[in-house]
């Protein structure tokens, strides 16, 4: 990939046209769009009900001690809205090449003279646009059903943090799509990463709960958690949106750490993906599955 301005623009155009294609394909099945917009509510609702069962209301004293805010409902709504991006990076970007491989179109795509990253980036771009739509719908629906209280005036900052996270997740998506091209059991790998992130990241419970629950081991679990960009992003976004939230990571630290993680994952992703792609081509397994 050349790095002069003209070719960069061409690459960007390739990415944008890939993204457009993907979005158009999605819009062709409007019922699916509705389906995926509603599904996350089914995943969120059990946590709200569990809260009602265990504390009998929408406020938890323990949550206030752990996170500054006792409003666990808004807390989990924010968590699951951001988690949508993780799912999309894993099952969207991570699986996108694999899907082309299944469909038999991978070779055609790899033959195109633009960079593979532009194609993947285009897919990630379309996923991000769609996911943002889904996350917004989810948030709106959840607020309607369960009630969410956020500081709307900080929405701009929150969205910026989310954008940074999307870039980092794109890096993770790259790493996974490389691994998946290489090893052919994507389901197990993706499910594992998905569940791991869901368990160790503060999607539904504050980061400090890990220390409360696991004792000394909790710090190590928290360290694993912070490896995933979702954790600093959640800390920052909640600090912006959730009234009286007391983050475990200071917002400035969370954001600069998120930026650093983004760089690391993007570089790692590109490196790994290039290596794997060459390896797969040498093995001649572009089309085989």
């Amino acid at each position, binding site marked *: 990939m050349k790095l002069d301005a003209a070719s960069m623009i061409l690459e960007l155009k390739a990415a944008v046209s890939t993204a457009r294609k993907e979005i158009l394909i999605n819009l062709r099945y409007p019922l699916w769009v509705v*389906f995926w917009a509603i599904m996350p509510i089914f995943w969120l609702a059990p946590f709200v009900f569990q809260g009602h069962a265990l504390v009998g209301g929408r406020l938890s004293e323990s*949550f206030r001690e752990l996170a500054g805010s006792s409003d666990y409902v808004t807390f989990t709504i924010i968590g699951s809205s951001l988690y949508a991006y993780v799912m999309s990076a894993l099952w969207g970007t991570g699986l996108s090449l694999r899907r082309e491989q299944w469909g038999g179109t991978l070779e055609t795509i790899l033959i195109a003279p633009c960079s593979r990253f532009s194609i993947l980036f285009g897919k990630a771009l379309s996923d991000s646009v769609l996911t943002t739509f889904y996350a917004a719908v989810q948030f709106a629906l959840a607020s309607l059903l369960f009630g969410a209280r956020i500081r709307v005036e900080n929405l701009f900052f929150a969205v910026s943090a989310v954008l940074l996270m999307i870039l980092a997740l794109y890096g993770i998506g790259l790493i996974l799509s490389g691994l998946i091209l290489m090893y052919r059991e994507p389901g197990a790998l993706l499910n*594992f990463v998905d569940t791991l992130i869901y368990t160790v990241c503060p999607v539904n419970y504050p980061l400090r709960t890990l220390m409360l629950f696991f004792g000394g081991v909790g710090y190590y679990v928290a360290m694993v958690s912070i490896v995933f960009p979702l954790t600093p992003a959640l800390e920052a976004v909640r600090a912006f949106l959730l009234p009286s939230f007391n983050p475990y990571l200071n917002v400035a630290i969370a954001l600069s750490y998120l930026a650093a993680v983004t760089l690391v994952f993007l570089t790692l992703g590109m490196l790994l993906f290039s290596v794997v792609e060459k390896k797969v081509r040498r093995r001649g397994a572009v089309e085989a599955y």
Partner: protein
Amino acid sequence: MKPTEGGGALGLFDEARVVGVVLKKELVLYLRYPVWVLFDALMPLLWVLSLVIYGRALVGSPYSENLARLANTGDYVSFTIVGMIVSSFAYSTLWGMSYALRGEQWSGTLESTFLAPCSRFSILLGKAFSSMLTTSLWVFLQISLVSLVFGLNVKFLNLPFAMLFFLVALPSFIGIGFSLAGVVLDFKEHSAFVNFLSSLLGLLLPISYPLSVLPPVLRYFSYLLPPTYAIEGMRSLLIMDSGLNEVMGLAVPLIFFDVFWLSAGIMIFAREERRVLKKGTLGYY
């Protein structure tokens, strides 16, 4: 050698042997995909962890006053874990058959399997039992681990009764499994379908909360689902030490569901199979 045209007891015996060999084959195949074995060993543990940690965040201690008021026990850790265990058994029977059929369609072996002169239900049962067996194994290991770490408050003396209760629920699960397997035969969007149904079940089944916290509309739907009764019954036996009367009250609707779903399942599968045979797409993925 004449082709066997089993009838009566001998035919039933032959069919039982088909169930057995399908069960054996599924287990052998399972062990040959080590990634999935590892996956099954780890995943349920992580899922239950996220529910239990969340509970801890909500309550701050291992005991919830509010749950004690609602459900006769404040020990939400045991409450949730038993809920998870029973629901994972239910899932394994419900999905086990359709997943396995889907797999055979994908690998191309479904046609050769369906060419055999044995009942399709024997094949499906073999698949259901194998997924139940692997689930039991992992659940057993995981309970042991969790009991060691968190000190699970389970009344192990009631375990035989709980298992008996599960047996009462089983035919209805199998019937639903037959229906799903039938639907899957001619359904290209299998994973989205399963995803949707299991998400719906995740909401409606009383896994991490008692039904009383659900809005009334949802609660009515919960009462239509056999796994709801299985979870409540086994939980009563295993952690609440409820009386026999209470559990019997849950067994009666289950027996009704058993009859209903077994017949519905057999009918739905037979109808769907016929439809696919007419369309000529049995082996198509």
